[in-house]
């Protein structure tokens, strides 16, 4: 599946970087470290002919055919994350203590079409 491709512009489904500060998300009163992170995100068109590249199920190909040939009000398959990685953060608890915690599925690592 495609890796980050901000250097190589494409309209096809791909993974993109996006660095954000927890203060921007109004979470910095609770998440004290790291100050920012890169959740990445998936964006782009899901072309019918490249379904195998994205590891898409048969249903995705069927939906693409329906969209292209039968009824375009049926949505085209969407470009979404298929794999994630966790993120460890330091959080400030209500009792005033600091706790180190790992959150699952915080960073998108691969994209697929569904």
């Amino acid at each position, binding site marked *: 599946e495609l890796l980050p491709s901000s250097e190589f512009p494409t309209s096809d489904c791909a993974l993109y970087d996006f660095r954000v500060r927890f203060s921007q998300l*109004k*979470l910095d009163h*609770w998440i004290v470290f790291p100050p920012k992170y890169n959740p990445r995100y998936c964006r782009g068109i899901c072309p019918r002919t490249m379904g195998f590249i994205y590891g898409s199920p048969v249903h995705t190909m069927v939906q693409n055919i*329906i969209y292209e040939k039968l*009824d375009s*009000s*049926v949505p085209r398959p969407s470009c979404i994350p298929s794999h994630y990685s966790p993120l460890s953060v330091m959080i400030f608890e209500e009792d005033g203590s600091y706790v180190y915690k790992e*959150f*699952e599925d915080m960073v998108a690592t691969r994209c697929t079409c569904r």
Partner: protein
Amino acid sequence: SGKETSGSTAPALSSQRLLWCHCYHHCPEDSTNNTCRTDGYCFTMVEEDGGVPVQTAGCLGLVGSEFQCRDTGNSRQRRSLECCTDQDYCNKNLHPTLPPLKPPLYVDGKIHH
């Protein structure tokens, strides 16, 4: 060929103890009597819609609840959300209130909202 709509919620987890919550506006497809079940929290939310506070309620999964239960709305719309998990339907006793309006910003003598 033709289109219709039908239920979308995955089957509930049988073995694990699930919490019952009151739901309004956030009920899953297969909900009955405005109730839902979750492995996480019940929530009640109030948000401003056209200047009028609108209250909704429902179930939040355990995954992501740390983030969703700390929801603080955004600059465009006032919103407040509260979570609970102490007993079934605990969100019936939650009455969140809208955050205060931000005072207008005075710059060079003019009001900027």
